[in-house]
């Protein structure tokens, strides 16, 4: 699809805005990665934290800094750059909006970080009321979310401007995808913002004495699952649109890519109960309904998998490959921009299978809150998503800084991903295995009074520490590459790869741009899935819970 509004290069000023996001994201990677290493070492039983630092304090750091800060900053930076590249340079107003969003998020991050360091907020990023953190911690995280809304507003404004100037035209695919993810994020974060602003903040300030735990948890998990799709969709953007161009192929179908994103918008949100399957106070029929809705995202996931491998195979066959798998040989196995995200795609196969187990109503009983779950999301977000983000960084950072990815850095990038895959196989594999034996997650080293069952878990915890150490090497390597690409790589031109659809003539149906329709269905599904059980939680509420500071 010819797109006259696309820039050959992201405008320098927009590039600066995106880069600001990436500096914070990679600083978060360094801090959060170190925290993760320390956790696996403590859990091996061979190492203790110095200077009275608590295990759960660094666990809070790890979750907040990697789960919220690294992801949100990277995603917003990437989406702003992608929108600017495909829909044209941001206007001054849009760019200023982006900067306000960035500084709100950064201020919020610093505030939350100070509270965690002062040991005033060792409640993990999932809050766990009635554990009660300092009010400034809640305010800090609220600023991160509000900042991300303002950041997202810049994308929405650009999209609206593009549509105004190009009536009757489908928006550029990367802009469309950034917009879908931004809207999904805004609808989803309303849940966490509500529990923080209306429940946790007044309660931590002492304005109200107790808090309704059932309501708070439900609002949190209304946000908690779409959060993982907010991480995943930017990776899908790269897989659908960028990777085909990197290998020299075409996007399998522009329309089907849009359709799968719309399906993610619809089915990512009304599914939070599958995180609450083991909880009292919610009727199991409503849990089951949300289990069904959860599984509907299988459909766009299958579409994505088909589309990716169709792109790979068509490309290989166009290059003269024969036989069932001959096309595999034609793929550019020496190009980090392809290989690194490809390893992420492969990791998504076991990761997705594990996710199906977790969400399976009864089967969740076997694995709920065991370290199996930790193993699961270290495959999804910490392998599939993060390796794709690394693969994106290898061209996007030099593109924005006016440098280029050298052969040496390209090779290092591939080595980095291989190290990551090895480390994660050890760590996540051992987590899955120990979880099936019952080892709990979010727990420091413990022999549980010499219990025989707990003794079985310890060898797996040693394996996790080995994996964690290998992964930390990977993080050091990634930071080295990032610093090189941001400051030291030779000046030059690095392409921002944007794929073209195989069927150039086929125009994407305009119905995909009908947001009244899609947001309308999104809200109907949310109301359908949540209204009655939510009213139940309020009407049949027990006396509220007082706050505790148990760390």
């Amino acid at each position: 699809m010819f797109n006259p509004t696309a820039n050959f290069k992201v405008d320098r000023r927009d590039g600066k805005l995106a880069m600001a996001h990436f500096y914070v994201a990679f600083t978060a990677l360094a801090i959060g990665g170190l925290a993760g290493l320390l956790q696996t070492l403590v859990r091996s039983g061979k190492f203790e934290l110095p200077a009275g630092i608590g295990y759960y304090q660094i666990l809070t750091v790890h979750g907040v800094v990697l789960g919220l800060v690294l992801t949100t900053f990277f995603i917003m930076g990437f989406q702003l750059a992608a929108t600017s590249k495909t829909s044209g340079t941001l206007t001054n107003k849009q760019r200023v909006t982006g900067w306000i969003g960035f500084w709100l998020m950064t201020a919020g991050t610093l505030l939350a970080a100070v509270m965690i360091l002062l040991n005033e907020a060792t409640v993990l990023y999932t809050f766990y009321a009635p554990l009660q953190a300092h009010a400034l911690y809640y305010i800090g995280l609220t600023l991160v979310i509000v900042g991300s809304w303002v950041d997202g507003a810049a994308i929405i404004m650009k999209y609206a401007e593009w549509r105004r100037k190009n009536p009757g035209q489908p928006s550029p695919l990367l802009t469309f995808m950034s917009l879908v993810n931004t809207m999904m994020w805004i609808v989803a974060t309303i849940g966490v913002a509500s529990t923080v602003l209306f429940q946790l903040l007044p309660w931590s300030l002492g304005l109200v004495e107790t808090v309704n735990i059932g309501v708070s948890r439900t609002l949190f998990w209304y946000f908690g699952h779409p959060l993982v799709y907010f991480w995943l969709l930017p990776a899908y953007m790269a897989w659908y649109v960028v990777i085909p161009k990197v290998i020299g192929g075409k996007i399998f179908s522009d329309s089907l890519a849009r359709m799968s994103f719309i399906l993610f918008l619809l089915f990512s949100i009304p599914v939070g109960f599958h995180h609450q399957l083991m909880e009292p106070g919610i009727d199991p029929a409503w849990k089951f309904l949300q289990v069904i809705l959860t599984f509907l995202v299988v459909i766009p996931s299958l579409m994505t998998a088909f589309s990716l491998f169709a792109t790979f195979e068509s490309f290989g066959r166009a290059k003269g490959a024969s036989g069932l798998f001959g096309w595999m040989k034609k793929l550019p196995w020496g190009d980090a921009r392809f290989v690194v995200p490809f390893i992420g795609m492969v990791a998504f196969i076991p990761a997705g299978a594990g996710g199906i187990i977790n969400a399976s109503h009864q089967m969740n009983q076997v694995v709920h809150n065991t370290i199996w779950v930790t193993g699961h999301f270290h495959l999804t977000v910490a392998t599939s998503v993060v390796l794709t983000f690394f693969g994106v960084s290898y061209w996007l950072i030099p593109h924005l800084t006016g440098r280029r990815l050298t052969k040496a850095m390209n090779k290092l990038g591939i080595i980095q991903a291989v190290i990551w895959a090895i480390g994660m196989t050890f760590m996540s594999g051992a987590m899955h295995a120990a979880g099936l034996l019952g080892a709990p997650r979010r727990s420091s080293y413990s022999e549980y009074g010499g219990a025989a069952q707990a003794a079985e878990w310890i060898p797996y915890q040693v394996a996790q520490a080995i994996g964690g150490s290998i992964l930390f090497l990977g993080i050091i390597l990634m930071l080295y590459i990032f610093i090189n690409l941001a400051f030291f790589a030779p000046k030059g031109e690095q392409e921002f790869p944007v794929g073209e659809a195989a069927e150039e003539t086929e125009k994407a149906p305009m119905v995909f741009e009908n947001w009244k329709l899609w947001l309308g269905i999104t809200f109907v599904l949310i109301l359908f899935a949540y209204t009655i059980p939510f009213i139940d939680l309020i009407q049949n509420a027990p006396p509220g819970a007082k706050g505790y500071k148990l760390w």
Partner: protein
Amino acid sequence: MHMHKFEKAWLIFGIGSLLVFLTVLGVSAFYLGNQPPSCLATIDPEKVDKTAPFNEPGLKKVEGKDWDYELVFVASAFSYSPASVEVPYGAKVKIIATTKDVVHGFEVAGSNINMMLEPGYISEHITTFDKAGEYLIVCNEYCGVGHHMMSSKIEVVK
């Protein structure tokens, strides 16, 4: 909008498998009664010690119910009451548990007994102990600095 015939076949196969899978889950849940623990009863978290059955934690034989025993647990930071309990082999037991303070987990390692304990709510699970041995109960939900020390045990004796 055009869809490749292979993609159609792939999606029909995928969605078909999904329907079979969800049907299996649904039959298990609604016909066989395998629902996740979802007790709807509530309690005043401040008065747990004075409210039956939590005023007497431990194993109690019951008559005229679908289960032979009731096993009552009270969780609080960072312990369970009782700290250990013996259950006769083959007994059908209803486990009834709650918490006095923050959210805790209740997981019998190596079994399917796994539920969240939340202040103000009662959690229940019915099970038959048909394997002798010692089972570790762990708190699997973060509850504070002593979270990893919080445990109890069930001994299934012949």
